[in-house]
Structure formats: structure tokens, C-alpha cells
């Protein structure tokens, strides 16, 4: 065990009935996933859709009930696994804040499910859509409910998996496959920081339970003084993980590409819930954000908000505008987290979830009818390429799809922050918090405030631009291809399955859902005081006034510029290219990371080849020795043997030669033998 801190007791807490309810809500989509994943292809598409939607509806109702009836905090903790005496626990925390988030997540998911029943009808690979969606919903709930960072991480990665599967849903498109991979890899890079945070907290506290760490950190002053290093890095690491998941600069580039997935997915994952999970996590672990880390968060949020808004101004892809807008609004939420205004951040998270989802779904309805036009052409043998997302080809949908238009306008108003709408309240809360912070910090912090206000104007500009391009004016596709006219004339409103979610979400953009006072809210009434910050925010009248001034002037400029446009001349091409290429971030990453990685890879492979050649060299060395031994064996040793045998043969043949029939030889030998005998006899006698 670690000697830094004496062993910290992690008490187990059994689940009470409220917690059991939350757990059952969590398990419902898992069961949906199991059923639909394994039997999906064998049951009717409509059964699939309605089963998933029905379960989702039940989950929403139960979450609402849970939210209404919860009092105080319910924490439960149990053991997941043990290694001998070391326990790894998992825990679930229910308070007004997690139940609020649950309500938001289940509600938007329900709306998206309903929408998807129609939108995904008769699309390819339908049998996998609702299971993947169920996987996402359960993982999202896991992040919301978990109070243990390790468990949060598990669900964090699982939502990444669901995102991968859903972005790449139409797998035959190269753009989808590439976007899915990109999303997962960028998130994985940020998740390495999460792993490091888990490592640090395990080493310092022996556990990853958030409540326990919070107690320890806030309680012991001595701890803070001498060990601030490690907890600070843990907080920094957790923030870095959210830079990936919540699309902060510079890791946000996966989000615009993620628009290659189906629009309901973009609405649910990449606008309302998944990307907000990062903000949610930071709100939960805000006690770990120490020293200079909050300032870093604010600055990054500020840069993110501004740069993404700039990009939105010049893109013609309807979904990408909303994607950039999401990135920008996430920047706002992060700025609020950085200055400590947790309530404002959460408030904006809530309002943003509803109006951004509505925006995506309404733009999706327009795309859907563009798609119908294209498939009608196909049915008549005309196979034409049509980029159904390009706003330059749209226009005039206001008259054809009024309900969609109304929903769009309501959520547009909320996003821009027009008075009497929800976004006005939440944005005002953030701006107010920023102002309060700047008055205390001074100096460079005013830059942040200014930038936030400028971004408000930019937001109004690009959203108005989008609204005009899609809904006003003439249907510009007809200018290039008149054959679409008959299909355009026949466009009607989408089915109720699409319109109901649109109107409901649009309706939630009004102020009264969050506060009775249309101009100022401490925090939403139904959010049950979730994250009421200790500091009472004064209401500065001039903040909404200035913001509205910026907003209205931006709207006026946009209207003037785009009202009567029919040609899209790109006057500042380098700027457009800069925005379109994400400020060359990807190029930078390719140069700084990807190319070096491949250089290293090739070097490593060459090293492997070198090792192999060295081994071959050693083998050849042994072969050479073996050959030498062979030569020695054959010539020397064997040679000796041959020599000996040859010698004996020689002697033998020498003696044998005298037995060949040569009479003189016989006589010669007999004479010598006789002489020797005489000698011998003579010597003896």
C-alpha cells in the first residue's frame, strides 16, 4: 500500500429504494440493446422502433418521477471486485443535479427516438440503429449516475463506442467511416488523460470514489499544502479528457466531421448529451480544479467559443453550422465552469440541450425532404448527385414546411439569446458570472469578457444567416436543375412523428420552462436548485442590454447581407479556406504527430529487420564454423584414417608383390631365408 496517506476507509452503502429505481432505469436500455441486437433482423422494423421508443418513454416517465420525489442526496456503494483485501467499488450518487440531468437526457432521447421512427424508416442497416442508440443511452445514464471515476471512465469510453458505431452508421460512405475513426481516436487521446487521472487518484487516495476524494481534499489542510501537486494534475488531467469529449480547442475537429452520421444522432449525441458529459463531469469534480487550472479552462473555453463561431460564419453545410455552434456553446459552458459559476454552466447545459436538439431536428426535417426529392428523381431513373446538406441549394422552406420553420425560429431565438427565451436566461447568467469574475481578476480577464460578447454577436450573425439561407428566399436548387420543381412543389409538412418532437422541443425554448422571470433567473425552478452557487449573482441590467444590442445589430447585418443574395461569391478565399480546414489544426496534427509516428514506425520496423539480420549473421557464423569443422573432419581426421589405411595397404602390397608368381622372386626370398638360417645356426653353434 502507498505510504503517502494512511489507508482510507471506503464504506459500503446498500442501495435504498430510490437508488434501486434509478438502477432499473439504467438497466432498461441494456435489455433493449440485448433484445434488439441479437434478434433485430428477425423482427419487423416497426416493432423494433416502437419497442425502443416505448422503453425510452417509460424511462422518461420514471426519471421524471424520480426527479420529482427525490429529497437530498442518495449515495450507494457496493463492491465490484476485490483482489484479496483490496476492494474496487462502484457507486451511484443521486441528487437533484443528477436527476435533472437524467430527465434532460431521457427526454431528449425520447424525442429523438420518436423522430427516428420516421426519419430512419426504410434506411439501410435499420436493425442496428435502435440497439446502438440503446447502448448510448445506457452508457450516458452510467456517466450521470456514477460517483466513481473509474466507473465513469468505463461509461465514458462506452459512449465513445456508441458514437463510433452511430457516426459510422452508414458504413458504405467513406466519409462516415473516416469520421467515426477520427472521433474515436481524438477522444481516445483525451481519454489517456482520464486514465492518468485515475492513476494519480488511486495512488494518492487509494480509491477513485468522488465523494471520498472530495472529503479528503477539502478536509485536510495539511494534505492540500504538501500534496497539491498530484491532485492538481489529476484535475488538469480530467479537464484534458473533457477537451476531447466536449470538443474544446484544439481537439474539437472531430465534431464537425461527426455530422456524417444520421441527423437524429447528431442531435442527441453531438449536441445535447454526449458532448455535455464533459461539462457535467467537470461540475462534479470541480473541487479538483485547483490553482491555475480554472483559468486555463476559461481561456480554452473562450478561444473555443470564438474560433468555432468564426468558422460557422463561412460554412455552407447546414449541419456543420450547428456543429460549430455546439462547439461554441460548449466553450461558453466551459468558461462558466472556469470562473466557478457552476449553476450558470449547468443551466446553459440544460437549455442548450433542448434548443440545439430542436435546431438539429428541424434542419434534419429539411434535409429529409431534400432527400425525398432526390429519391423521387432516382425512382424516375434520374441518378443525380445532390448534397442534401448544402444550404446554397436550399431556400424558401418557410412556406413549404411552416411547422418546421416555427420550431426552428423558436430554438433559433433561444440560441441567439433573444429576450423571453430560455437561452437568454442561461447566456445572461454566464455573461454575468464572467463579468463578476473579471471585476475581481482584472487585467487579461476583460479580454475574455469582450470575446464572449463578440461571440454573442457572431452567434446571432451565423444563425440568422442559416435561417435566411434555408427558410427564406427562393429554392435555389431550381436555378441549377429545374427538374426538381415538381418535387419541391409537392413538399408537405413531415409526419407527426417528426413534428411533435420539433414542436415540443421548440416550445421548451420559452422562458417560462426555466424561470417565471423572463429577464433574470437564479436557476431553473424545475431543476430543483441544482448547483445553486454560494455566491448570489447580482443582476446587472446592462449585461443583457449590451448582449441584446450586439445580437440585434448582428441580426440586422446578416439580414441585410443575405436577404437578397442569389450568388455565392467567395471574396475572401484564404479566410474561407482557413475556416473550412479547421484552422489547419488537422494539418498541424498530421505534421506534428502523424508523420513522426509513421517515421518512428518505419524506424522500428527497420530495427526489427536489423535484429533479424543480426540473428541470421549469427546463424551464418555458426554455419561457417560447421563447414570448417566439416572440412577438418573430412580432410584431417578422415585423412588420418585414410593415411593409416593407405600405409597398411602399401605395406601389404609390398609384401604381396612377392607372391605374384615371379619365379625369380621366390628364388630370391628362398636364398635370403636360407642365408639368414645359416647365419642364425652359425651364431648359435
Amino acid at each position, binding site marked *: 500500500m*502507498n*505510504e*503517502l496517506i494512511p489507508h482510507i476507509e471506503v464504506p459500503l452503502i446498500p442501495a435504498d429504494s430510490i437508488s434501486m429505481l434509478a438502477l432499473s432505469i439504467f438497466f432498461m436500455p441494456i435489455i433493449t440493446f440485448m433484445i434488439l441486437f441479437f434478434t433485430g433482423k428477425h423482427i419487423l422494423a416497426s416493432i423494433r422502433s416502437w419497442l425502443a421508443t416505448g422503453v425510452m418513454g417509460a424511462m422518461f416517465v420514471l426519471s421524471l418521477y424520480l426527479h420529482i420525489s427525490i429529497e437530498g442526496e442518495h449515495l450507494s456503494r457496493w463492491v*465490484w*471486485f*476485490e*483482489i*484479496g*483485501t*483490496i476492494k474496487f467499488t462502484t457507486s451511484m450518487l443521486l441528487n437533484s443535479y443528477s436527476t435533472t440531468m437524467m430527465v434532460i437526457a431521457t427526454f431528449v432521447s425520447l424525442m429523438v427516438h420518436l423522430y427516428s421512427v420516421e426519419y430512419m424508416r426504410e434506411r439501410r442497416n435499420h436493425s442496428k440503429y435502435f440497439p446502438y442508440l440503446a447502448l448510448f443511452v445506457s452508457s450516458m445514464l452510467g456517466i450521470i449516475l456514477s460517483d466513481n471515476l*473509474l466507473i465513469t*471512465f*468505463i*461509461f465514458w*469510453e*462506452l459512449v465513445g*463506442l456508441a458514437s*463510433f458505431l452511430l457516426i*459510422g452508421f452508414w*458504413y*458504405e*460512405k*467513406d466519409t*462516415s*467511416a*473516416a469520421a*467515426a*475513426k477520427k472521433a*474515436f*481516436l481524438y477522444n*481516445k*487521446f483525451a*481519454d*489517456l488523460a482520464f*486514465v*492518468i487521472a*485515475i*492513476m*494519480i487518484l*488511486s*495512488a*494518492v487516495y487509494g480509491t477513485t470514489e468522488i465523494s471520498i476524494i472530495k472529503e479528503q481534499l477539502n478536509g485536510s489542510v495539511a494534505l492540500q499544502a504538501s500534496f497539491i501537486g*498530484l491532485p492538481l494534475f489529476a484535475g488538469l488531467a480530467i479537464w484534458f479528457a473533457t477537451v476531447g469529449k466536449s470538443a474544446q480547442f484544439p481537439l474539437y475537429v472531430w465534431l464537425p466531421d461527426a455530422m456524417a452520421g444520421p441527423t437524429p444522432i447528431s442531435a442527441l449525441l453531438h449536441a445535447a448529451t454526449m458532448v455535455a458529459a464533459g461539462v457535467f463531469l467537470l461540475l462534479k469534480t470541480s473541487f479538483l480544479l485547483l490553482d491555475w487550472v480554472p483559468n486555463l479552462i476559461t481561456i480554452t473555453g473562450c478561444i473555443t467559443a470564438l474560433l468555432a463561431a468564426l468558422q460557422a460564419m463561412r460554412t455552407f453545410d447546414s449541419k456543420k453550422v450547428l456543429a460549430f455552434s455546439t462547439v461554441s456553446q460548449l466553450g461558453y459552458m466551459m468558461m462558466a465552469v472556469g470562473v466557478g459559476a457552476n449553476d450558470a454552466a449547468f443551466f446553459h447545459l440544460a437549455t442548450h440541450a433542448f434548443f440545439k436538439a430542436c435546431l438539429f431536428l428541424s434542419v434534419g426535417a429539411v434535409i429529409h425532404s431534400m432527400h425525398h426529392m432526390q429519391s423521387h428523381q432516382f425512382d424516375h431513373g434520374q441518378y443525380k448527385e445532390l448534397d442534401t446538406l448544402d444550404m446554397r441549394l436550399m431556400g424558401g422552406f418557410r412556406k413549404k414546411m411552416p411547422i418546421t420553420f416555427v420550431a426552428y425560429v423558436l430554438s433559433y431565438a433561444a440560441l441567439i439569446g433573444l429576450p423571453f427565451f430560455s437561452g437568454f436566461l442561461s447566456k445572461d447568467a454566464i455573461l454575468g458570472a464572467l463579468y463578476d469574475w473579471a471585476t475581481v481578476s482584472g487585467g487579461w480577464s476583460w479580454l475574455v469578457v469582450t470575446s464572449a460578447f463578440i461571440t454573442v454577436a457572431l452567434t446571432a450573425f451565423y444563425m440568422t444567416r442559416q435561417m435566411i439561407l434555408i427558410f427564406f428566399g427562393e429554392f435555389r436548387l431550381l436555378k441549377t436543375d429545374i427538374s426538381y420543381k415538381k418535387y419541391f412543389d409537392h413538399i408537405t409538412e413531415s409526419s407527426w412523428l417528426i413534428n411533435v418532437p420539433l414542436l415540443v422541443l421548440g416550445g421548451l425554448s420559452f422562458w417560462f420552462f426555466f424561470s417565471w422571470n423572463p429577464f433574470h433567473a437564479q436557476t431553473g425552478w424545475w431543476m430543483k436548485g441544482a448547483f445553486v452557487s454560494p455566491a448570489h449573482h447580482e443582476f446587472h441590467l446592462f449585461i443583457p442590454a449590451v448582449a441584446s444590442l450586439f445580437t440585434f445589430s448582428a441580426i440586422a447585418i446578416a439580414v441585410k447581407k443575405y436577404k437578397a443574395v442569389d450568388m455565392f461569391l467567395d471574396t475572401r478565399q484564404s479566410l474561407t479556406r482557413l475556416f473550412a480546414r479547421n484552422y489547419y489544426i488537422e494539418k498541424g496534427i498530421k505534421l506534428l504527430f502523424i508523420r513522426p*509516428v*509513421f517515421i*518512428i*514506425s*518505419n524506424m*522500428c*520496423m527497420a*530495427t*526489427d529487420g536489423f*535484429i*533479424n539480420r543480426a*540473428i541470421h549473421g549469427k546463424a551464418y557464423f555458426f554455419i561457417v564454423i560447421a563447414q570448417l569443422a566439416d572440412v577438418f573432419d573430412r580432410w584431417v581426421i578422415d585423412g588420418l584414417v585414410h593415411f593409416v589405411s593407405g600405409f597398411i595397404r602399401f605395406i601389404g602390397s609390398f609384401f604381396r608383390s612377392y607372391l605374384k608368381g615371379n619365379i625369380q622372386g621366390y628364388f630370391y626370398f628362398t636364398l635370403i631365408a636360407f642365408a639368414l638360417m645359416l647365419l642364425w645356426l652359425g651364431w648359435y653353434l
Partner: protein
Amino acid sequence: MAAHLLSILIFLPLLGVLGLLFIKSDDHRNYRWVSILVTALQLCLSIYLFVAFKPEYFQFHSYDSLVYMEKANWFQLPLGNLGILSVNYFLGIDGLSLSMILLSSIVLFAGACASANITKQAKGYHALYLLLCVSIPGCFLALDLFLFFLFFEFMLLPMFFLIGIWGGVRREYASIKFFLYTLFGSILILIVFIVLFISTYNPAEMMEYVASNAGYTMQNIQEGIHSGELINNPSIIHSLDLIQLSNPVNYFPNGLLGEHNTLTLFGYSIRAWCFIALLVGFLIKLPAFPFHTWLPDAHVEAPTAVSVVLAGILLKIGGYGLIRIVWPLFPQEAADASWWIGLIGVVTILYAAFVALVQTDLKKMIAYSSVSHMGFVVLGLAAATTEGITGAVYQMFSHGLISALLFLLVGVLYDRTHDRMIPNYRGLISKMPAYSVIVTIAFFASLGLPGMSGFIAEILIFIGAFQAATSATAPIPTWMPIVATLGLLLSAAYYLWTLQRMFFGKFSTHITVDRNLLTDITLSEKVLLYTLSGLIVLFGLFPSILLNKIGPSMQAWTEFFISMK
């Protein structure tokens, strides 16, 4: 039967070989049923053992806690004044062996099922395969190092022939390379075993001989040795009993490995050299950088089932050897060398991942990813905390299952088209949807997605390593586990890139590939693959199934290590 359960588990396949000798069949494919049946029986036995095992503490000095133990005297060799060399047939099981036995039976069974399509000389193939099934469990259960070495070496023979005869294009090269490489490691291990033989004595066995002489106890013997009285006594018994060897009292104080020995070679003591030799011997098997180059060739050329067994279990024997033999016998040296071992671990993880990124052969990429994952085991060992070592064992178990799955999947493709090149395929999901789903599951499992067993292993290793790095003794620096996390990113990169290139997008193949051969997986293939995937998810969601059994052993191991170093 329970008393001899371990022996039955080990030698059951020999009966299978015997059976094979007497079966004659015109259809060569009928021989596969023998292996499938035998490995299924082995699997049942292992599961029984797993369920019945009570997680006692494995105390390194006592025989009492070994529940299923078999000990019998095998042979003894009197050597005059040098004493008596004694070799026992000693089997025993603790948490670590248990997990490896379970893994090996699962993987061997999967391999037997995958061998179903062998038609060329099938009888010989299955006989060799069953020999493999004998030696692998033997290796994990042997507690006498001589016996261990026997089984350890014995594995090489069937592998050599299996790769060399039934393998791919360069099979002869690959099999000889594999054989000689690992043999070199075995030689180093043998040298150390010999040194151990001569520098230790076995008081327990000597007790059996002097039991008649009442009054003698083990203490007397030990004191006698230490005081120098009993040296060069012909009645001293040397053995390689692992339990006795872990007790430093049993080493001759003036022997090569004794505490009073001051002999050094190039500045390192004999103990250090023995540690290095053993380490290298097992690292070759693991394999770790820079001893890993036999693996890509062996894997690529081996037939599918043999790759499954090679990656699934043979690599784990290296890890097992390190945990079972090297660290307990040389704890001080291991602790001193942990910086280097950690470095080897991190380098292996990253190096192999980098190389995997640029492979064009799918099987070679997976082979390098195997090397990378084994690097995590080394890192966990370097940390030597409970979480670290448990993570290492869990990684061995999990990786066994995952790589078995991965190689089976490559085999599916190779069996159909005999082409494993990644650039030759695009958009396979359209033609082979069920196959692509399992490939996605397998790839995500291998890159450590939570919910699968690989994640549990890796997070435990990271937590353990970082805890070690921030503890008072700090065997490894803090940057090592942090840099090692890059391995996670790299795995995600090469797997997802392969997924994108080969499986997603519009369907097309290289001109040399016949599209009609690309049929989706059959029912029997599905059953095997889904079962393995299910196991991976099971051990990812419910790690307590395994950890309840092995946890106490791992904790005891750590405590022993800490107390000895």
C-alpha cells in the same frame, strides 16, 4: 480421483494419442474428433478444478496450503561427495496456475475446433496437437523445476513440426527460427537450474531419510549446513523443489548463490547473472523487445489453430515463469533491476505498437499487437504491487482469449481466399456482415475497451505501476506508466485504421482475390467465435469471477516479494 486430478488433467491427451494410433479412417477429417473430445474433457476438468478451488493463500514455505498436490519421488542420483540429486514428480496448484490452466484448456479446445479443416496427414497433426495438450498444463502445474523444464522443453517439439509441416510459405524458416530462439532461452534457464541444483539442499527430503534417527529436525540439518559441518557429505540431497528454493535458508552460505559468496563477474554477482539469465530466458518466450523477432514469423507461417495456441498460451508461459520462478527466487535482484524491467516493458508496448501500425499483413499486425500486450505484463511485473501483478496475470488471461479470437478471425479470411493483405480488401462489411461484427468486437476488445477483459487488466496494471512509482521505494519512475498509456492510443489507431480500410466503405477487392469466396461465417464458426467473445465480455463485466480465485494468491505473492527483497 480427486487426489490425482492434476495428473489426469495433464496426461489425458496421451490416452488420446494412443487412441489415435489405433483408429484408422479413410476420411482424414475424422481424426479431429479425438482432439476435440479430449480437449473438451480437459476443459471440463479445468472448469471443475476452477469451481472447486478455494482461494487459500499460497505460502511459499509450506506444503499445507496446496490443496491439490501430488508428490512422488521420481529418481535419485547419488553423486558421491557431491550429495544426492533428487528429482520429484511434484504438482501443485495455486491461484496463478489456476487461471493459466483454465485459459489453456479454453484455448486448446478452441484450437482443436479450429483444426477441423486439416486434411493433410491429419493423424500426425492431431497426435502432435495432443502432445502439446500434455505439455502445456504440465508446465503450469509443475512445482519441481526439473519437471517444469521437462514440460517446458517438450512443448517445442510438437510446435516445431506443427509449424514446419502444416504452415505457410516460409514455414521451415519460421519453425527453425522459433525452435532455436526459444531453445537458446531454455539453455540459459537450464544453466541457472543447474546452478540452483548445486547451491541448495532440500532439508525436507533429508528429513525423510534421517527420520529414523530420532532427535534430528530440519533445524539441525540447516544449522549443520550453515556451520559448515555437513558440506561434502554424501547424504545431502539436492533438489529443485520450488517451495524449498524460495526459502533462503536452504542455500549453502558459501555456495554460488549463497549470501557469503563474493564472486563477481564483470562487477555483477553470480546471483545477478543467474537472474539475468533466467530473465532473458523467459523474456524470449514472452516475448519482449529485443527478443521478439521470432514471433511475427512463427505466427504468420503457422496454421490458424497453431497460431491460436501459440498466441493464446505459449506466450503466457514466459510470463508465468517470470512470476512463478524468477521473482520469488531472486527477489532482491528483481527489485534492483525493476527500472530496467519497466523500461523493457514500456519499450515493448510502444515499439511493437509502432511496428503494428505499418503492417500490411493482417496476421503480422495482430502478431505485433500480441507483443505489445505482453509488454504490459512486464510493466506490471516491474511494479510488483498487488494491483500490478494481478493486472499482469489478468492481462495474460484476457490476452489469451482475445488473441485466440483474433487469430481465429484471421483464419476465417485466410481459409477462404488465402490472402491476408489489408490493402486488398475494402468494405467487407457489405459482403460478410456477421464476420465484420465479430471483428469489430474483437478489435475493440484488444484495444482495451471497457466492458471487456482487456480493460480490467490494463487499468490494474496502470494503477499498480503508478502506485509503485509514487511509493517510498519508487522502483519505477512516474513517467513510465504515463508514457505507456500511449500504447492504448496506438492500439486504437492501428485497429480502427484497419477496420476503416478493410471493413468499412464501399466493397471492393484486389484483382487477385476471388469475390465469390467471401462467404460469411458459418454456424459452427459463429458458435466458437461468439462463445469466445462472450467470455471476453463476461470477464470484462464480472472480473470477480477470476479475481476471487486468484486475488489472495497474488496478494500473498506481493507480500512475500516485499518481505524478501
